[in-house]
C-alpha cells in the first residue's frame, strides 16, 4: 500500500545516464579520428573496472547489485575518466584511477548521490599528483597507428615516437620555464601541436563535446546555468588578460577549445551530485570553476586546472548552496504584503 501521489511520470536515473553516454559519442568518434583507437581501449578498460568495482562495493555494502549496477552511473564515471586520462596511459593507471573514483570517492560516501566530490575528477587529481609524467604523455595528433598505442597501454613503452605534450602543457612549459622572452604568439607558432584556434585535433574533439552538450540541454538533462557560467567566465577572464598582455596570456579561443574545457562545461561541471543545486548557486559554482581553471592553467604547476578547480568548488558547494537558497513561495517580498 503506497500513499499519494499514485501515478508517476515515466523517468529514471538509467534514462538520464544513458542519455549522458549517448551525448559523449560524437566527441569519442572525433577523438578516434584524430588520435587513434586507443581511447576505445581505455573506455572499455575503465568501464569493465568500474562495473566490477561497483558490483563489489554494492555487494560489500549489502545493496541489491543488479538494480544499482543498471543505473549507469558507474559507466558515466568510467567514460569521463577514460576521456580525461591520456589515451596511451598504461592500463594500470586507468584501472587504479577508476578504483579510486568508484571505491573511495563514491562508495565510501554512500554511493550514488551522496559523494561530495566528483569521482572522475578525484581520480584525475590523484593520478596527476602521483604520476605527473605518465599523465602528461599524450599521443601526437594524426599518429593513429593502433599497435604502438596498444603496446603503450599494455606492454613495452616505446613512447617517444608517438607522444607529445598537450597544447596546454606545451604552452605552460614554454612560458614558465623557457627564457623570459617567450611570448604566446611565438610559442603557438613554433609547435605542430597547435591548431587554428586551440590544440590541433583537440579543437574538433571540443566541438564534439559541445554538440553533445547541446543535446543534453535539449533533452533537459542539464540546465544552461552551469555551462554558460563556466564558459562565460573562462571567456571573459582569459579575454581580458589576453587584451591586457597578449604576450603572456593566451586568448579565450585557446582556453575554450583546448584541454578539458568543453568536456568540463557540459559533462563534469554539470554533475548534480557534487555541485550546487540552487539556480544562483549553480552560476557561482560554475563561474568559480571557470576562474580557478584559468588561474591554475595560467599560474599553477599542473597543466590543466579543471580537475582541481572542480574539486575546490565541490568543497565550497555546500556553503554556496546554503547561502543561495531561493526564496520560498510567499516569502519573497518583505512580510509578503499585498500590493
Amino acid at each position, binding site marked *: 500500500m503506497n500513499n499519494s501521489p499514485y501515478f508517476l511520470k515515466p523517468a529514471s536515473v538509467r534514462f538520464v545516464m544513458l542519455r549522458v553516454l549517448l551525448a559523449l559519442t560524437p566527441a569519442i568518434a572525433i577523438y578516434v579520428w584524430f588520435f587513434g583507437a586507443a581511447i576505445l581501449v581505455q573506455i572499455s578498460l575503465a568501464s569493465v573496472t568500474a562495473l566490477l568495482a561497483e558490483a563489489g562495493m554494492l555487494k560489500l555494502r*549489502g*545493496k*541489491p547489485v543488479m*538494480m544499482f549496477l543498471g543505473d549507469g552511473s558507474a559507466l558515466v564515471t568510467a567514460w569521463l575518466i577514460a576521456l580525461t586520462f591520456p589515451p596511451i596511459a598504461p592500463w594500470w593507471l586507468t584501472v587504479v584511477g577508476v578504483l579510486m573514483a568508484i571505491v573511495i570517492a563514491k562508495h565510501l560516501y554512500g554511493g550514488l548521490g551522496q559523494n561530495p566530490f566528483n569521482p572522475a575528477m578525484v581520480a584525475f587529481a590523484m593520478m596527476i599528483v602521483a604520476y605527473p609524467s605518465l599523465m602528461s604523455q599524450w599521443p601526437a595528433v594524426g599518429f593513429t597507428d593502433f599497435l604502438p598505442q596498444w603496446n603503450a597501454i599494455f606492454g613495452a613503452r616505446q613512447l617517444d615516437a608517438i607522444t607529445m605534450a598537450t597544447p596546454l602543457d606545451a604552452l605552460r612549459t614554454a612560458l614558465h620555464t623557457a627564457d623570459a622572452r617567450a611570448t604566446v604568439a611565438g610559442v603557438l607558432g613554433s609547435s605542430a601541436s597547435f591548431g587554428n584556434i586551440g590544440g590541433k585535433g583537440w579543437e574538433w574533439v571540443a566541438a564534439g563535446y559541445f554538440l553533445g552538450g547541446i543535446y543534453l540541454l535539449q533533452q533537459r538533462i542539464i540546465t544552461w546555468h552551469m555551462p554558460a557560467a563556466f564558459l562565460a567566465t573562462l571567456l571573459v577572464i582569459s579575454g581580458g588578460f589576453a587584451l591586457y598582455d597578449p604576450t603572456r596570456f593566451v586568448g579565450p579561443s585557446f582556453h575554450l577549445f583546448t584541454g578539458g574545457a568543453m568536456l568540463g562545461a557540459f559533462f563534469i561541471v554539470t554533475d548534480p551530485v557534487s555541485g550546487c543545486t540552487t539556480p544562483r548557486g549553480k552560476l557561482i559554482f560554475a563561474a568559480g570553476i571557470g576562474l580557478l581553471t584559468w588561474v591554475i592553467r595560467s599560474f599553477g604547476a599542473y597543466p590543466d586546472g579543471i580537475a582541481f578547480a572542480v574539486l575546490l568548488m565541490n568543497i565550497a558547494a555546500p556553503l554556496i548552496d546554503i547561502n543561495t537558497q531561493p526564496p520560498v513561495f510567499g516569502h519573497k517580498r518583505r512580510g509578503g504584503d499585498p500590493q
Partner: protein
Amino acid sequence: MIEALLVMALGAVILGAALGYAAVRFRVEGDPLVEKIDAILPQTQCGQCGFPGCKPYAQAIAKGEAEINQCPPGGDEGIHKLADLLGREYKPLSAEHGIEKPKSVAVIDEAACIGCTLCIQACPVDAIVGAAKQMHTVIATQCTGCELCIAPCPVDCIRMEGIAETVDSWKWKYPVVALRRVA
C-alpha cells in the same frame, strides 16, 4: 643564565598580572548551560538517572559529574541532542539506568484505591488528585509516566497503560524503503 631566568620571570610576572586582571574583569555569574540541558531533558522527573529530578541531572551534566546517557525517557534521541549541545561523543543509553519504553500514563484502579495519598505525595508533577480516604485519580494529560507512584501504593492499584493511538495522535511512518524489499 641569570638573564634567562630574569627574562622568564619577567614574562611570568607580566602575563600573570594580565591574566589575573582578566579573571576579575570577565567573571561569569550563573550557568546558562543548565537551562539548555534542562530544556532537552524530557521532564518526566522520574529519577531514573540517579538524580532527584531533571534539573539536578542537568546541573550534574553541566558540571561534568554525570554522563549524558542516563536518561531512559529521553531515549536515544535525547542523548544525541545532548551530545550535539555539549560537543561530547554519543553513547548508547546506559543499561543500569533503565531502558527506553513507549510512553505511558499511570491509571488508578479506582475500585481498589483506599485513599492513602501516598501516590499523591510521590507524584513529582502533582498529576494525581484526591484526598485522604477519598478515591484518587490520575490527570492523564499531566502524567509524565515516571512510575514513581507505583511503588508507594500499598494496595498495588496503580498500573501503567500505554497510550492508544487515535486519529489525532497518529503519525505518518517512515517510508518503507523499497530497496529492502528487492534485496
